[in-house]
């Protein structure tokens, strides 16, 4: 079984269902629109900020504020790519055609990851430039130190969120269960754990908390985070690897 055949087949699958288009479009629109809105609000709020707050002001990171919501659409994309196979019963047809389950899963993930990265990277650049335009005199330039890394990192962050969701969906199989766990986790629980003093030290090792540090250019004044931007993304990547390993083992061991 040539993996190239399976990759082509998975590309046909992903481009021929409506959910791919609407989840990815939603991710772009929500991230960009919310980024513009928050950038605009921040520009007007800037004069009311305290001195330390101004020193910590990170125009690049501000323009990515829409990702907190846009990533939810990326999660839906990642979950549906995998769990659609189970909820429709297509998985039995798919595995009869490609009985090498590792080849099947990783071809599917490769196609979906490439697509998520393309869309994520484009979203990241668009939201950066539009966000900076809204920030007026407080804006950052793409040539400033660390900014290009943060913008490319934004695309990587969205990609990793989607891949993490694919791994979880491969473990849990059902779309409702997967979304029911991932959505509240990333929208609420992770934020609470990361911002409450008692759990902050643990919370910052959660995938989204750690990974989002790649999008920071200005380090907050009293910051004691023990990892840098790439370290944070690395922590997130470890979470993703663990989810993928779990998904692979689940597919490999269980009956379809």
């Amino acid at each position, binding site marked *: 079984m040539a993996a190239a055949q399976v990759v082509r087949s998975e590309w*046909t699958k992903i481009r021929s269902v409506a959910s791919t288009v609407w989840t990815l479009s939603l991710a772009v629109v929500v991230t960009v629109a919310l980024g513009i809105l928050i950038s605009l609000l921040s520009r007007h709020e800037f004069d009311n900020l305290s001195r330390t707050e101004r020193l910590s002001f990170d125009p690049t990171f501000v323009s990515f504020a829409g990702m907190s919501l846009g990533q939810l659409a990326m999660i839906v994309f990642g979950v549906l790519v995998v769990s659609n196979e189970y909820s429709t019963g297509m998985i039995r047809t798919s595995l009869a055609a490609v009985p090498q389950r590792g080849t099947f899963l990783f071809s599917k993930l490769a196609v979906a990851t490439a697509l998520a990265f393309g869309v994520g990277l484009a979203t990241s650049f668009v939201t950066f430039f539009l966000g900076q335009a809204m920030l007026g005199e407080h804006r950052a330039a793409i040539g400033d130190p660390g900014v290009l890394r943060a913008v490319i990192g934004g695309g990587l962050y969205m990609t990793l969120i989607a891949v993490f969701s694919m791994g979880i969906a491969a473990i849990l199989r059902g779309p409702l269960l997967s979304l029911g766990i991932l959505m509240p986790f990333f929208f609420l629980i992770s934020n609470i754990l990361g911002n409450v003093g008692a759990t902050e030290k643990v919370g910052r090792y959660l995938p989204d908390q750690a990974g989002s540090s790649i999008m920071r250019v200005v380090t907050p004044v009293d910051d004691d985070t023990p990892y840098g931007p790439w370290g944070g993304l690395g922590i997130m990547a470890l979470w993703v690897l663990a989810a993928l390993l779990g998904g692979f083992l689940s597919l490999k061991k269980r009956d379809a």
Partner: protein
Amino acid sequence: MIELEGLTKRYGEKVAVNNLSFAVRPGMVTGFLGPNGAGKSTTMRMILGLDRPTAGDVRIDGTHYDRLKDPLTYIGALLDAKAVHGGRSAFNHLLCLAQSNGIPRARVHEVLDTVGLTPVARKKAKGFSLGMGQRLGIAGALLGDPRILMFDEPVNGLDPEGIHWIRTLMKSLAAQGRTVFVSSHLMSEMALTADHLVVIGQGRLLADTSMADFIQRNSRTYVRVRTPQPEQLSDVLAAAGITVLRTGDGAFEVDGGKAEHIGELAARHQVVLHELSPQQASLEEAFMRLTAESVEYHAHSGAGDVPAARAWGEGWKGEG
């Protein structure tokens, strides 16, 4: 050829498939018969490598399913017509299957034509009727032009025209020398299509025999006789050494008797007959009797061998 060797599947305490060994041979339709829940679908899923056997082995042309290169070109299967993403068009559904096995795109158009779905090829599968879904599943099975075809309850829920179409298709595939393995829980359906029969009950092999043999062995033949002079007739038959069975409606059933012989006896003794007809018990009855036994065997665990007629199949060895 499909070969099963001691194939067993356990779900916890429950044994779904129990030590199945048989071979499905080319050039004919092999019916896979058993009541609902007998383990037919589980067996078929294990043949395709979807479910892992607890014990035993199954091989396709001597090879494990997951070692086949481009498996759709060896064996095509219709397990569940609904195993399709409803949001995908029929064409794209078949295209992604074709691509994964290196089958050219032109073949997708061919099989759509064969099953008569070309007019709706660009329509989403979720709008398909049960019959159209079944045809799409069959198109997927035919896609790789495989030498082996496997269908799980293909006529379920189809209209008479669709049923006729599938029967004709299966027979023509077998006539081309392909291996055709089809499951059903209806004996009457199998009697019309299958040349060979594998019967299971409670996951066990109950019979592996030719259809003709099965009919001959399992269908009771008798002569039904009705007469206004029942006492005289039973005396006449008793005198000739023929035992009769009186049925509730005043008729006689003569086991294994020849209608001509009974008619001549009656005429010689001037007994009036209102009915004299040779009868054959339905295959459905024979099948029910056979599978009912499997329940008994199961209940008295430890009862010896299951009555399998393995000998017939031996004649085919070497041809696969």
